[in-house]
């Protein structure tokens, strides 16, 4: 009798399991088709650091005080600059970041009085050589300035979950992101 009850209970649990999985079968996929689609990167995402531009001049805010260089525990930043004619402050010419050593501690961002550096939201960080991670942030900044103009005309990759963050928003992070967004709409597919 015990055996029969065990068989009955086991069969019932198996059927319940099958019922649950077939329920999932007819629901929509929850995954993001990554190379074609991408989730919005949270505002507080810590990528490698990048230079913040001065919107008025179209140049980096950095004036080469070298506080970040000294604050860096891993010694991966080296900044150089020149004083241009007619300018009150120095302008940055090279901002070398050795990302192979960086531990993303954020000391450099904290110590910067001007708010001239911030974490980028670049997460596609893969390379074939070590040299790809010895970055010059001034060059990167200039490339970004050029890219922003062309991006205004060209097609952008599709970004899911919410509107695209403006650069001004990125500077002051808010407690929101895909996780908070997913919780808000009940965790269903975007």
């Amino acid at each position, binding site marked *: 009798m015990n055996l029969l009850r065990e*068989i009955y209970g086991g069969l019932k649990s*198996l059927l319940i*399991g*099958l019922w*649950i*999985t*077939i329920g*999932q*079968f*007819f*629901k*929509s*996929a*929850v*995954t993001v*088709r990554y190379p074609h689609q991408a989730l919005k990167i949270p505002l507080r995402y810590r990528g490698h650091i990048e230079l913040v531009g001065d919107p008025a001049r179209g140049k980096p805010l950095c004036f080469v005080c070298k506080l970040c260089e000294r604050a860096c525990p891993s010694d991966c930043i080296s900044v150089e600059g020149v004083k241009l004619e007619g300018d009150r402050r120095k302008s940055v010419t090279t901002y070398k970041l050795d990302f192979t050593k960086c531990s993303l501690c954020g000391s450099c961002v904290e110590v910067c009085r001007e708010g001239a550096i911030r974490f980028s939201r670049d997460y596609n960080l893969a390379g074939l050589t070590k040299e790809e991670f010895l970055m010059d942030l001034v060059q990167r900044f200039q490339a970004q300035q050029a890219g922003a103009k062309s991006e205004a005309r060209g097609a952008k990759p599709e970004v899911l979950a919410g509107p695209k963050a403006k650069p001004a928003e990125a500077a002051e992070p808010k407690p929101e992101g895909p996780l908070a967004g997913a919780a808000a709409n009940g965790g269903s597919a975007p």
Partner: protein
Amino acid sequence: MRALFSKLITFLGTEPYRLVVALLAIVGFVALNAAYLVWVERKAAGRFQRRPGPTEVGPAGLLQPVADGLKLMAKQLIVPAGADATLFRAAPLLVMAPVLMGLAVIPFGPGLAARNLNVGLLMIFALGSINVMALMVGGWSSRNKYAMMSAARVVSQNVAYEIPMLLVVITMIMATGTTDLSQIVLQQAGPFWHWNLFRVWVNPLMPVTFLIFYICMLEETNRAPFDMAEAESELVAGAYTEYGGMGFGVFFMAEYANIVLGCSLATVLFLGGWQSPFGLLPGLLWFLIKMYFLVFSVVWVRWTFPRTQFYRLLNLSWKLLIPASLFTLILSAAMIKILRALS
């Protein structure tokens, strides 16, 4: 034109050509099924896990089997040093051949069987036992102790499950009184309660018999939750460890071909074969609907249940399925005797 066509049909119907046509049809059917059941499996696995499955190659990933096939065919076939080269190469063929031969006696529609043997059921099981031996040969000839151990597991598993399977089949033979698969289908004509699955007046435990048959079929085809032979997440590839390229590919195709054969057999024995429950649609279509529903259920079971442990698998067979199938056998024998005496 039409006269020419019918002439061609009659010509192809005559003996030696009929054989070639049937052979090509079965090989084509098996190859297409093996290739596209892999796609169905991956797509369904994706659906069960709330992801899209293969999407990149062709529309909805439909060309994925072609890409997989090309990849496997481009690989080198390595025979390990010291392995028994002849047996090593023969093992995939030995796995595939019995399935192809078994499909020859399956009636896909009215009069649509490659060879209508009056001992068809017997032949399928006679050939089916080669399957186990072929896996053993594959493991043995690899000269790899892990492949050998896996092959030993396969054999102990398949021997354990062949017994309840055959007991169930004997029950079915007693209930139907024939081993001719076409005859078995013809007996189930009419509404769906004439199907053997619902023939409770012959044996009140008929659904249980079907369940035992289904479990044994899952096991015979080495499918999850009984896929000890090739437990992907635990072993490298079990008995197929040393196989690469199309050698492995053929083992894989044989697994799917075995599922098709097992589901076809379950359809014929229990679900009325090509008999339509309402009289709509041609018989072949009904056969395929029933068979592919069973195939889907096999995929469904795989992506629902975790793999069992080995001793539980053997316990299930020896302590539960064999006594249960013996009981149904004796019960249906008694029922037949009583019914005969009454009438």
